[in-house]
């Protein structure tokens, strides 16, 4: 069964059509790669799925339900979480607190309970702390738990971004260029991490310019150009597709 379905989505910014009649599906448990040259509309697609932007036309279904017009926080509640192309963190909080904040949806957030620090709230908070520990361990960042997010090196900041999104417990995780600015080792670690996340049953939509990473990770790939889906298929098919090569022509992309 498909987990997410985009149906004839169009997004216009004033006169500019960033996404044009885009339709695709994401199946449960897969890693779907979404690639395309700069300005193709990948981030815009993310913004619409996560509710940050509303499509001009078309519908988005998650687990069969129409989520097109839902607010971002409701969509997160339904089980879709995302990371950002430009690293976005709770900068002046520690790594631990960042992830703890990420656990918001499973935390007890009632006003009076928190004010009076009832036993229910304390138990709930104990659970979120455990969950935070688990996530830190899962991503191998438990050693830097007390560092402030803003002081982290870039690579760790990217991982922390994913940690925050995972804390919200998504069924579908949208990753916007998780490998940007990473060196080879870091990229390989990230590939492993993404595999691990999928192995836990989380479906992933991956936007990434690092072709090697996308080709190795993705079960299927969709190629966007100028807001239009030009190709959809298995990594091997996409790699040799003429339209794709055309779209990327003149760009320094590594297809090997």
């Amino acid at each position, binding site marked *: 069964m498909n987990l997410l379905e985009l149906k004839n989505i169009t997004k216009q910014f004033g006169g500019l059509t960033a996404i044009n009649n885009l339709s695709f599906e994401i199946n449960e448990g897969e890693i779907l790669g979404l690639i395309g040259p700069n300005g193709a509309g990948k981030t815009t697609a993310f913004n619409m799925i996560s509710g*940050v932007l509303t499509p001009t036309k078309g519908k988005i279904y998650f687990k069969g339900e129409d989520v097109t017009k839902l607010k*971002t926080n409701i969509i997160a509640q339904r089980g879709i979480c995302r990371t950002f192309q430009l690293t*976005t963190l709770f900068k002046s909080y520690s790594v631990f607190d960042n992830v703890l*904040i990420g656990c918001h949806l499973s935390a007890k*957030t009632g*006003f009076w309970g928190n004010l009076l620090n009832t036993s229910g709230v304390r138990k709930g908070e104990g659970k979120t702390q455990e969950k935070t520990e688990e996530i830190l361990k899962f991503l191998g960042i438990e050693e830097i738990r007390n560092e402030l997010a803003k002081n982290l090196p870039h690579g760790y900041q990217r991982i922390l971004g994913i940690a*925050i999104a995972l804390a919200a417990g998504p069924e579908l995780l949208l990753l916007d260029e998780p490998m940007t600015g990473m060196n080879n080792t870091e990229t390989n670690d990230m590939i492993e991490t993404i595999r691990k996340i999928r192995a836990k049953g989380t479906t992933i939509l991956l936007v990434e310019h690092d072709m090697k990473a996308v080709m190795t990770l993705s079960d299927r790939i969709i190629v966007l150009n100028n807001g239009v889906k030009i190709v959809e298929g298995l990594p091997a098919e996409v790699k040799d597709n003429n339209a794709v090569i055309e779209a990327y022509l003149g760009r320094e992309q590594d297809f090997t």
Partner: protein
Amino acid sequence: MNRKHYTKNFIILGTIAFLLIIPLLSSDPYHLQVLMVLLLNIILAISLWVIMTVGQLSLAHAAFMAVGAYTSALLVMKLGLPFWLAMPASGIMAAILALVIGSITLRLKGAYFLLVTFAFGEIVILIFSNFWESLFGGVSGLIGVPPPDPISIPFIPQVRFVSKVPLYYLALSLTLITVLTIYRLKNSRLGLTFGALKEGDLLAECIGIDIMKYKVMAFTVGCFFAGIAGSLYAHSFVVVTPIDFSFYHSVYILIYVVVGGESSFLGPILGASVLTLFSEILRKFGHYESIGYGIALILVMLFLPSGIISLLERIIVKVQELFKRIKG
């Protein structure tokens, strides 16, 4: 780490003990009056700080205080309600108003929200000074607000609010309650969520936080205590005039927070205390008061951008190092 906490707790407990015995040290009504103003300013500063933790700047805090002051005074004077009911009612009134206004305006950020609250504050003062004069008393406001009703507790002599001393203890208790409540809130999951909104509300939304809900919550809580402060003010100082709650008063409250240091819980408390005393000392110098105050603001912002609390923290660290060196 532990030692720092130790020093901090010591300072806090010492301060509370000192505040408790002040009426024994000096019965000069002027001193108590100044301290009551100081305590009121602490309530106002720390409650504005709650609003600022979600990243919003309000210039309507004095207006919400006005709502509390008028509500409480009118409930007692016109309806004959006891102060002990009117006081919580004034907080609730301010909170309800904040809930309504906040739900509409908290979509706005930064300078926009600041200016809207400014406009709202002006409306409130305009209404109190020019409309329904038979109720609000116009520009001269409400005169002869009675002191709190006496409390009788079995086995203890009745407490009557005839002198400054019991009023001072009332102010001190309300201040402690406010500070403790807000401290609890800050250290709870809600405090964490509030701070997250300030840091990045898009990210917060993407992990499922309903940002409007928590912004409105923080705003309502902050304004509730501003309302309580208004009630305390009305019944302690007998007269309530609209000009007491002008936009400049709101600005002062904001200044307490920022000069004290908005990034820490103790900052607003420290700021309110230091600046209240500072302007009291300067008062002797007539017009030079404003100059002194103005220059102090500029200097603090230029040289201590995280507020005077950062200076205090630095001093504590220095003192501890000194102790270590003496021991070692």
